[in-house]
């Protein structure tokens, strides 16, 4: 309990830690999502531009 009270500074210390950890987690999620999205878009583009013979349904 003593640890959590941060010597009376809990209301400043814990929100600080929370916001930076949130920044880290969000950036990991966003970066991975950006890559997944780019792969999906590329797959769609490739399927539209030059569908290889017999490769129907590859889009999924």
């Amino acid at each position, binding site marked *: 309990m003593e640890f959590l009270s*941060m010597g009376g500074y809990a209301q400043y210390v814990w929100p600080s830690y929370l*916001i930076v950890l949130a920044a880290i987690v*969000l950036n990991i999620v966003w*970066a991975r999502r*950006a*890559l997944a999205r*780019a792969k999906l878009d590329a797959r769609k583009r490739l399927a539209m531009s030059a569908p290889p013979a017999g490769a129907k349904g590859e889009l999924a």
Partner: protein
Amino acid sequence: MAWTWFHRLGSPPYIYGLAARLTPWFAWPAAGLIIYALYAGLAVAPADYQQGEGYRIIFLHAPSAWMSVMVYTTMAISAAVGLIWRIKVAHAVAASCATLGATFTFATLVTGSLWGKPMWGTYWAWDPRVTFELLLLFLYLAYMALRSAFDDIQRADRVSAVLAVVGVVNVPIIHYSVIWWNSLHQAPSVMKLGKPTMPPEMYIPMLAMFLGFTLLFGALLFTRLRAEVLNRERTASWIRDVVNA
């Protein structure tokens, strides 16, 4: 011969593969260092003789601030390389930086504000360093807004690169602001030459967090860079192999 590595770095398939291979080598050490530094900073380092436990905000505030300027500097240098030598991959690096940089600039301002209330007596002061850090946030936001104003990636790259390069003058201003002006903000305790002004129980977690954040930047940059490279390569044949794998 000596320049082949430089040419390879401009090759999108090479960069895509390199970024994919390097990501885990940055991500896992970053996770280890950040978790260690969180523990050591919160539970092992002693209280400050003036600020008590309140000073512990520094273990995230200073590395976030480092992140905000390191990311901007990377963004500006790659934007310049992209403009000068017309290298698409360099523009892709610059574009990969913006969101990350803006988030950590915001986190720097918020943690600084939360630290300022008990120590300076106010959440916000128009102190030189605080003001220029806010300007950095606006630079990131302007860069992102400018990029999204163009449908054509190549044009977005060129126009936003000019802004990134011009804005880089703000980086040394942020760094030297506490020396040039009378400032509420404390002088550097880590990013300086000579002996640190902290005992090792504070200094080591601090260094671990700086290194952890730097490696985290690498891992996130590589992941975003792969996305940016794919978006620029449109229908190049090598893409077929990596997106269907």
